[in-house]
């Protein structure tokens, strides 16, 4: 959702306004606040990274430098399976949600239909309600739907990694649609007319003009979906089945059990992965 506000942040102030000197805000105080904020945001993460190399089983004690935790992490089959599950869920839900979310966004921008506003609110709900509410709703839905289907068909559907993927698709569609829509806000529909005027039929217009121009938005939405999926603990926890742990579920249970300091190492890996993702998304936006 903040992605939307972000993409809207494209420089809109007139050039002359940018040249206006901006002074008299108490630069000193602003600087102190900014330093404080960046320290506040980054010191915990740095500590996490530093202690992932600490040869001590206590989280806050430095016991000399070691790579042991990383070795243990990559030897731990449970964690590695969970990581694999997470990547699988994130990839699958990203692909499906990106396709559907993009189509929804295009449909909503192009067609004005009755009840559009209700549809709007409904679409945005997963973005806005807390994940825990979404989680319990999906849990009830899956358990009831499966009860009904199993009674009718004699099948044996149950919660599994597939239900996690379906749950992630559900909330990711909304996020993708929001991001793609905000990139469509700036889209000049006359470009489509221009393409048609120059002899391109509907398909060629989409292929040569619309799609390349909204591609950064679609990629942004896809990356967002991927990240959100990797990030999610609550919804996965409620909708997963036996043996279908994702990485956050595994990490959470280890944190609660205060069992192994491998968490520092896992966290560092996750942090670096996030860093990579955000860098990619920023590079893509800049290319625009």
């Amino acid at each position, binding site marked *: 959702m903040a992605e939307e506000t972000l993409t809207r942040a494209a420089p809109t102030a007139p050039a002359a306004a940018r040249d206006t000197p901006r002074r008299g805000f108490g630069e000193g105080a602003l600087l102190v606040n900014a330093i404080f904020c960046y320290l506040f945001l980054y010191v915990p993460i740095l500590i996490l990274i530093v202690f992932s190399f600490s040869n001590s089983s206590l989280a806050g004690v430095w016991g000399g430098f070691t790579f042991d935790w990383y070795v243990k992490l990559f030897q731990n089959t449970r964690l590695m399976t969970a990581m694999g599950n997470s990547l699988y869920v994130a990839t699958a839900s990203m692909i499906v949600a990106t396709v559907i979310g993009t189509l929804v966004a295009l449909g909503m921008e192009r067609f004005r239909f009755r009840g559009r506003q209700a549809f709007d609110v409904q679409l945005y709900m997963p973005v806005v309600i807390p994940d825990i509410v979404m989680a319990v709703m999906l849990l009830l839905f899956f358990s009831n739907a499966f009860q009904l289907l199993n009674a009718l068909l004699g099948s044996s559907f149950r919660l599994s990694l597939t239900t996690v993927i379906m749950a992630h698709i559900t909330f990711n569609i909304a996020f993708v649609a929001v991001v793609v829509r905000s990139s469509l806000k700036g889209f*000049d529909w*006359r*470009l489509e*007319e*221009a*393409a*048609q*005027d*120059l*002899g*391109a*039929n509907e398909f*060629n217009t989409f292929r*040569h*003009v619309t799609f*390349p*121009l909204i591609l950064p938005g679609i990629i942004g939405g896809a990356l967002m979906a991927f990240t959100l999926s990797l990030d999610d603990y609550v919804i996965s926890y409620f909708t997963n089945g036996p043996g279908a742990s994702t990485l956050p579920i595994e990490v959470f249970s280890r944190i609660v059990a205060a069992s192994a300091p491998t968490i520092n190492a896992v966290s560092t890996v996750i942090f670096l992965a996030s860093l990579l993702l955000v860098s990619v998304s920023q590079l893509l936006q800049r290319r625009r």
Partner: protein
Amino acid sequence: MEGLPPVSDGIAIELRDVVKRFGEVTAVDNVSMQIRDGEFFSMLGPSGCGKTSTLRMIAGFEFPTSGELLIHGREMGQVPPYKRPVNTVFQSYALFPHMSVERNVAFGLEMKQVPKAEIAPRVAEALEMVRLGSFGERYPRQMSGGQQQRVALARALVNRPEVLLLDEPLGALDQKLRKEMQAELKRLQSLLGITFIFVTHDQEEALTMSDRIAIMNQGKVLQIGSPTEIYERPNCRFVADFIGESNFIDGTVRHVEGNYATIETVEGIKLRGIAPRPVSTGAAATLSLRPEKIRLTPPRENGLNGQASSFPVRVEQIDYIGSDTRIVVRVNDKRTVDVWEQNTLSTLDRDAYWQPGEEAVLSYLPNNGLILTE
């Protein structure tokens, strides 16, 4: 489309009783017109008058609610834009931002699957034509507004359309660039001989560039004619008011004589003028009198010859505006009339010129005054 010989009789575009409604709003109201081959045709009117909707229907972006639209004799009804032999230059240019200038210009040819070997020379030729020969590699955002405008022109013209549609293409340019582009457009049009349909709300632009102009208001075409006809012989008050400036004096028709009629104002002043449409005695009518067609003379001097209508006035206000002097004269406590006099060396001698409060006689030739009924 190809293969069929155009059945045109020299008519490029024909509209027959075309209506376009958007929901409750009627944007184009029963418009009929014929646009000739090779003509520079302008549609002029205030915003919301239906000129852009008409252009968009010709381009195929909108379809008429009812009526017929023919391009070189072929009915275009629901034909999509990509199957029409017309191209458009958009108001905001609508250049594809992700393509270089060359790729922009080549787009239409590629879509029509023109052989590759033919595309490159035609693109180069089109860019040469708009004097952007060396700009092919650039991207639209790296170019000025005037250059983007030329790219848009090249992109449309490279397809050799039967008709080129221009939707207020000069609106975003500054005054000087506008003048340049006006000349450029005229040059290209006479060079290529293509029919241009030009939509604008700028009357001066329409008057200087067009072979014929259609004046539109509230979805209707009020008058179609050459710039001279539109300016000198407007057929209704709206056209007279919209094009240039005019004094309007209301009265009742007292006397009709051929094309000429005489109206009498409430104050009893009798005014003669030419009536572009037939009028009948007793009807309410308005005299439209352009400020530059009025002579102002001292009371005992003869102004214009005996044909002229005249009445006494008092000079009220004098504004020097460079090429002209604009004088407001008062007829009585309810009515003033604007008079423009071109400045000459003698009128610049301000001491010998009109002074506020002076008595004068206002006169005009009847064929410069228009008696309009609507």
